[in-house]
């Protein structure tokens, strides 16, 4: 059984596609929280958020903002929600990563709220410590990975010709703003050749600032 979103891509699904290119799809759903709900998802199948490449997340989020602006203007809604449901516990109903943009009007009964909880200081302290530690670990791992890849690519660049239309991945960790390297530090350079079909939204993407 195919995934609902993959079916949309293959034009087998019923949902009309507002926009599609080599990397992502913008479609109107019929099973919605409110009419006008739009979903933006990568063309390739990624089940959950953590699997999606950073560049793709970047693009989907930028497009989601534009969809939100379009909904304001065309549907006359008074607000929008951006929602990523990640994992079964979050109510993710389609096993394919997507960003939902939901138009909101007053008293629309959509829901999407929560009750704020009161936690005691100890719980906060514990949570904060655990998260800060994990964040530092993740940053250190990323830095190591980046170092390894730079070394590997330097070696590869010496032995291969860059002119032959090969993609050269150069990871630039020194480009990180505060040296924390949490977000993507990858620089992707695509060699321009006439024979290479460069899809829109991808050309010359080098680094997420």
């Amino acid at each position: 059984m195919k995934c609902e979103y993959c079916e949309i891509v293959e034009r087998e699904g019923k949902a009309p596609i507002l926009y599609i290119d080599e990397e992502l799809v913008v479609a109107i759903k019929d099973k919605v929280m409110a009419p006008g709900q739009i979903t933006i998802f990568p063309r390739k199948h990624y089940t959950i958020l953590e699997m999606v490449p950073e560049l793709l997340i970047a693009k989907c989020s930028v497009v989601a903002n534009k969809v939100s602006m379009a909904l304001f203007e065309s549907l006359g809604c008074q607000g929008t929600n951006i929602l990523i449901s990640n994992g079964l516990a979050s109510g993710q109903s389609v096993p394919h990563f997507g960003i939902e943009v939901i138009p909101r009007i007053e008293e629309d009964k959509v829901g999407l709220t929560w009750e704020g909880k009161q936690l005691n200081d100890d719980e906060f302290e514990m949570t904060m410590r655990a998260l800060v530690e994990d964040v530092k670990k993740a940053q250190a791992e990323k830095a190591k990975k980046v170092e390894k890849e730079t070394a590997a690519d330097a070696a590869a660049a010496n032995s291969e010709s860059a002119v032959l239309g090969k993609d050269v991945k150069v990871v630039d960790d020194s480009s990180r703003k505060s040296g924390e390297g949490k977000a993507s530090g990858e620089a992707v350079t695509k060699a321009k050749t006439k024979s290479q079909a460069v899809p829109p939204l991808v050309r010359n993407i080098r680094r997420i600032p």
Partner: protein
Amino acid sequence: MTDEQRSAMAEKLRSMTPEQLAALQKEQCIFCKIVSGQIPSKKIYEDQIMIAILDINPAARGHLLLIPKNHYMIMPHVPDGEMAHLFVVAQKLSECVLRTLKVGGTSLFIANGQVAGQRAQHVILHVIPRKEGDKVLEFTDTLISSEMVSKVETAVKPTFFKHLGLGGDEPKNDGGNSEEKKDSGSTGVVHAALEPDAPHPEPSAYKEHSASGAVRDEGVVKKSAKKVVASKGIPVVSQDEKVVPKRKDDDVSLDDIANLFK
């Protein structure tokens, strides 16, 4: 707030320049104060563009607020580069939350506009740890007719394409490395934001939004941003920091100010 107070405030605000209004908003903004450290917070991540803190009134333990350091009241104001950065970091922090708190999922959520649940005058991306049956972000799906779906398509498509900078029905395959921020092909709009030579965002002197709504930054379509803002009655703001005359009436909250412009 009495009618008299309201009209006095309205008069005061009308006499302010967009720059002064922006500075006033920023001065009153709790989250800008958190960013600057004036108000303490439980920070778990920071870089040049944003910070991530623990929500003190969370939906669940580990509820994170991702806050851009620059003051943006609503989502359309956020430049593409910063938007992208917020989400990429949110992905990483979601991973941290899943690992550390051993929960079954996370929800990433932005409330844009009061009716959508926006309570703060500053754009916030929530990362919320989720457990089954937690009664957080509950929703129900309903099936809408294909007729309704077609209506949505007809209504939204042209405006959406305008925001993407596309002329016709199909995405243009325009060339090059253009950093032109005006309506270019789809490549221009999104990839310009991600160019390595795009202006490096500095929080204090970031983008300049002029009074006419012209935006000199990554990929936000000028006119539509202004149109959205104008239709909501919110003044287009500038990032310039100028001296703001101190208000005498301290009973007024930022909500009152926003309401005046509706």
